[in-house]
């Protein structure tokens, strides 16, 4: 039995619900052996207007069932992205959203305006949740007015789909989610990494040069399922669940908890074909439970 896995998410029709999370798939050109047939969409590595060197090493450290990273949004800047990557994206059979970053709301808007209409760019994921930059990032993500201001700045400069990636580092994710929805977001990505810290007892210093980093991997999954569920309850736009998905059952938890789609991140580091395996596993679950399509999957989403 063939299962219809297509899904409509925030202005885009995707062939499947499993997406590549920003920062875990590069610009999609790095790994030739990756299976792309199951990829619903790719969200690019986060980009700023200007090139950024990123943070000094060590940038990553493994922690129990997870990892901390502080890459610092290393990247070529928007002109490098347009020159080197977008032309390749334009040839692909799945949409690519650009994860955009700025130090001010106006910078986010400028990025959207520059990228709007560039062949290969199908939409935007506004990053208001990066814990590893000195300016901007998380600041916008934990204040509903700032989150709305950034969303509005982007919304005014593009007709392409605008998604907003939320931080878990808030007291009530529903408040931020509603603020972004009201400012014109088409969908929400929930969640980005948790801020964490790890100490080396030989040096008695933080293991990461940036002192703190973003925690990802299976360690955060139950927290992420809860926060994605809370966001989904708070808004009527689609929520894309993210956080420690290693296999199909993990993805199905997010989908049942009210998410329209999911993003796979850290799992791709471990298994370059994780996305295809998660996609196939979801289809197998749906088929074995008698569902002809993803849309038929019952959701657990009591309204607030």
């Amino acid at each position, binding site marked *: 039995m063939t299962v219809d896995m297509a899904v409509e998410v925030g202005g885009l029709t995707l062939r499947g619900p499993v997406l590549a999370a920003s920062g875990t*798939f590069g610009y999609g050109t*790095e*790994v030739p052996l990756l299976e792309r047939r199951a990829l619903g969409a790719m969200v690019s*590595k986060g980009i700023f207007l200007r090139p950024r060197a990123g*943070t000094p090493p*060590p940038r*990553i450290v493994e922690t129990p069932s997870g*990892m901390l990273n502080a*890459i610092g949004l290393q990247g070529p800047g928007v002109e490098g992205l347009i020159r080197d990557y977008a032309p390749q994206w334009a040839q692909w059979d799945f949409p690519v959203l650009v994860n955009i970053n700025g130090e001010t709301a106006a910078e986010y808007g400028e990025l959207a305006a520059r990228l709007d209409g560039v062949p290969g760019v199908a939409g935007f994921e506004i990053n208001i949740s990066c814990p590893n930059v000195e300016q901007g990032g998380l600041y916008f993500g934990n204040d509903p007015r700032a989150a709305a201001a950034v969303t509005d700045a982007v919304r005014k400069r593009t007709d392409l789909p605008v998604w907003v990636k939320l931080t878990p580092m808030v007291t009530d994710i529903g408040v931020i989610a509603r603020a972004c929805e009201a400012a014109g977001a088409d969908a929400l990505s929930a969640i980005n990494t948790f801020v964490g810290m790890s100490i080396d007892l030989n040096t008695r210093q933080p293991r990461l040069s940036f002192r703190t980093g973003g925690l990802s991997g299976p360690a955060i999954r139950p927290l992420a399922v809860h926060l994605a569920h809370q966001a989904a309850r708070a808004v009527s736009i689609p929520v894309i669940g993210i956080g420690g998905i290693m296999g199909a059952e993990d993805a199905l938890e997010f989908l049942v908890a009210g998410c329209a789609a999911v993003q796979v991140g850290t799992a791709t580091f471990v298994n*370059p074909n994780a996305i295809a395996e998660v996609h196939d596993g979801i289809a197998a679950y749906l088929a074995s439970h008698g569902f002809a399509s993803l849309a038929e999957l019952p959701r657990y989403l009591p309204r607030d």
Partner: protein
Amino acid sequence: MFVLSLDAPPIANSVRAGQFVNLGWSPGPLLRRPFSVYRTDGDRIEVILKAVGAGTSQLLSMTARDTISCLGPLGHGFELSTGPRSVALVSGGLGVAPMPLAAREARAAGMSVTWVHGARSVDELCSEADGDEVIWATDDGSRGFAGTAVSAMPETDIVLACGPNRMLAAVAMRWPDAQVAVETYMGCGTGVCLGCAVPLERGGYDRACKEGPVYRAADVDWSVLPAQLPYAVGA
């Protein structure tokens, strides 16, 4: 030191000296761990490890015919084109890992090979020699030259080095053109996570797993590259 032998025909038949494989095992750590390919034998590749932590004990408790996930060959290895007539292979401790393949490629390119093995003491010295000239160096003088591998080195046309980053920084001072294989933390091994950043003298970072792990010694900003990595399992 332990040798793990893996049946991996496509890797065995294409790997170049200095390239690595990224191994994942279960039960094991979340992230894969990088290992230089040590030797090849027909369809097999070998990697070396020391028993230092939980991860290595898991690997060492495996038995013949167990399976392990092996991604590779990864990275950019040593350049051993014809021209130079002599090469020194300088290694500290487990840094000997990429050298047997380097010796093989150097001999194929017509070079004479000198091994320079450094370690803290004779117990940690590697016995790799393969019919070439060998120089030993131990910090405590328990075998060969008393001092570092770098201070024991002869003059050769080209120098390849692998070992602790502190040793490689010393190599860079004396032979800016040496090819060195650096140690970094690594996330994916495939170029997407940007976790294995190598600071460059010209500014910015690139990736040990993609542009590296082999660099021209003087191109690396050794003051920013961490000198010691408390990994459970080393490359």
